[in-house]
């Protein structure tokens, strides 16, 4: 197998490697040190049993192909990782750990990963987790991989929990000021609801309602005066194809504690997802949107995040997987 050979060669010669899938998320994070290790050819569904709600795929498989495979059985990934530029591999999605507007309701990839096979910095092929939902044997290495940006090793394959597609979905738009929207958003978390994604932008609250026909119909009826919209809004938001995201240079995101309402100003537009818990804005930060110390705000482009010293435990963790720091060595966690 070529990928393993490349890693073993690098291990034997202590050569650094930068792991690359489709390259769709290079404006989020990229490694430039060492030889490029191309995982995008390592593709294919290894096993898919729709009635088990589990799919096992090689890391280079594109998210779009996985979507199509699942769609044939009326299923979907149990979360919504972005496909920037319409591209992206599942390995890259796991390494980046990003999620789209459905995050609070569908969870993130960390919630969906059941098992991984990786190659560590010693060139060892290791399997962790499995293909069953309940599994507490050994430390949960598979979920540690989500968001690790490739520094713990090369991901070879991933087992994921999948979900039945909702029978129907509809998108509605409500014109309201931010304070009123905040009240509606609070209810999407604290009360049973059919809402599975939210976005507040320039005085309009967009909601996605999902479920069976009767519950979605009932949910729509509970928002009198709402305008019905196209469902592709959510893919546009997920994949940063929405006009708001066209300006990428100064894109910032802020995470707020659940239940904390961000203050927004009219002259500095922001896009608010996740029932109010994720705020996108443009600008170099500090003032837009109004943040306080408890919020975490940083440029989306990780190379612009002022480099924090990794804690001693994170440093040791990297060495525990990759003693010679061969994988994506220039990436700071």
């Amino acid at each position, binding site marked *: 197998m070529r990928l393993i050979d490349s890693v073993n060669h690098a291990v034997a010669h202590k050569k650094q490697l930068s792991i690359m899938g489709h390259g769709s998320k290079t404006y989020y994070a990229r490694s430039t040190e060492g030889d490029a290790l191309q995982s995008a050819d390592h593709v294919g569904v290894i096993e898919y*049993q*729709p*009635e*088990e*709600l*589990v799919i096992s795929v090689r890391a280079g498989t594109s998210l779009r192909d996985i979507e199509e495979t699942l769609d044939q059985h009326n299923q979907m990934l149990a979360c919504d990782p972005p496909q920037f530029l319409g591209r992206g591999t599942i390995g890259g999605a796991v390494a980046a750990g990003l*999620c789209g507007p459905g*995050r*609070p309701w569908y*969870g993130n990839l*960390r*919630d969906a990963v059941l098992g991984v096979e990786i190659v560590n910095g*010693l060139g*060892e092929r*290791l*399997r962790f987790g*499995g*293909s*069953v*939902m*309940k*599994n*507490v*044997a*050994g*430390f*949960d290495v598979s*979920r*540690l991989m*989500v968001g*690790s*940006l490739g520094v713990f090793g090369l991901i070879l394959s991933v087992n994921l929990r999948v979900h*039945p597609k*909702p*029978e129907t979905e509809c998108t509605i738009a409500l014109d309201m000021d931010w304070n009123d929207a905040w009240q509606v958003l*609070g209810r999407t*978390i*604290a009360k*049973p609801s*059919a809402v599975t994604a939210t976005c507040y932008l320039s005085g309009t609250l967009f909601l996605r309602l999902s479920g*069976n026909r*009767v*519950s979605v119909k009932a949910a729509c009826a509970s928002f009198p005066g709402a305008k019905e919209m196209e469902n592709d809004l959510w893919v546009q938001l997920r994949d940063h194809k929405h006009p708001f995201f066209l300006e990428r240079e100064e894109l910032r995101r802020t*995470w*707020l*504690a*659940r*239940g*904390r309402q961000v203050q927004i100003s009219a002259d500095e537009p922001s896009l608010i997802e*996740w029932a109010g*818990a*994720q705020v996108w804005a443009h600008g170099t930060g500090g003032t837009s949107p109004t943040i306080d110390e408890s919020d*975490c705000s*940083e440029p989306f482009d990780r190379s612009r995040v002022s480099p*924090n010293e990794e804690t001693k*435990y*994170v440093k040791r*963790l990297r060495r525990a*997987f990759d003693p010679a720091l061969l994988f994506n060595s220039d990436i700071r*966690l």
Partner: protein
Amino acid sequence: MSLEFAIELIKSTLPRECVLTDATATAPFETDGLTAYRQRPPVVTLPRDTNEVRQILRICHETGVPVVTRGAGTGLSGGALPLKNGVLLVLTKMNRILEIDEVGCTATVQPGVTNLSISQAVEDKGLYYAPDPSSQIACSIGGNVAENAGGVHCLKYGLTLHNVLGLKVQTIEGDELELGGNGYESSGVELTPLFVGSEGMLGVVTEITVKLLPTPPSKEVLLGAFNDVESAGECVAAIIARGVVPAGLEMMDALAIQAAEDFVHAGYPRDAATILLCEVDGTSEQVRSEATLIRQLMEAHGAVNIRSASEPAERDLLWQGRKAAFPAVGRISPDYYCMDGTIPRRHLGKILSAISTLATKHELRVANVFHAGDGNLHPLILYDASDDEQLHRAERLGVEILELCVEVGGTVTGEHGVGVEKLDPMCSQFSTPELEQFFRLKEVFDASGLMNPGKAIPTLAHCSEIKGMHVHGGKLPFPELDRF
């Protein structure tokens, strides 16, 4: 000597009532829920706050004395079994709910808070904490985090892992780690999953922020009886294939049904080969349409007797037989040994018949209770512990069942943890480099190996012992290891 010195230091640091060394006082701590293993701890510490936890850890670190953390002691795999030369750190005095945020739907609690009391504290706000291990009335949330506890609602609502947002962890080196938080994401690598389910091997969790969910306004429970296990299994697959994710989906076999019915009189059909219990929840429209579909699917798969309940009292009665299954089996046998393997669901029929063959071989009876939705199987092996030979056969049968689970792509433990109990089958599930990777991970947070040593991950020496001393070409496997 170091242990005695450590005890002296602890006594001089903590108030008198927080340190137990007297044999009568420490005796209740000699075992957890896995009572076949017992070890009286030389010292039991009961810290009242994080600062006292940190002081105990500092003393252990300085004196090189190992420490075992314990919550309510309801664990089923011996994870909190004391060490004869170690300190037992019991967190039950740290039992305060620190903050409830009903807008953000989170609760921040100390580790000694019981699972059920979180839900009780937020009931009036229309919220609850989803994971519900059967010991939820007694088990502590700290123990739930250590074991990544499950329950009957995991298929829809996930394990402890999916419901924990943030942790405060004390390391043996004296650092406090703040992992996750009370948002959905945070910057940098997320270490929370590594600590959830780590069985006290990496650090001591002193604060936990959990996610609260809105209480579903409507619920319905359906019970279907089947003449054979395969039909019930196919019915489960059909329910999921039709896009329904039930809140609970449980199966019981004939022996478990009869034991439960004799015990609680829930009205289970005593002559059924299998029953399927299915709970759906959500808005009333959703529940009505899903329950109708499930009833149709049960009928289509040959269910002979279908009951449904939507009122709380009726629902509870249907659940009661399932929830009382373990004690019910306890009434028909002097002892039982509860297994916890998980399998891909499609192998259910094959596994159940293989278990029955193995049971006959070992001349033991097995009752099967099964979280059918997520593939987590709890075979209960009936035996008499006063007969050493029977105990040995029961343990042997247990290991063979778990090896079977691994063979079909499953795991040796779905929700009870490895502890001391499943060290042997862990050797079948993981390769040598994988076990070595686990130990390197442990060293990251516990370089001196003092946190719950000997649990959860078998040493290479242990695995080579149980696999037998196969000598190849005059060389023992792992020649670098000491053998005794």
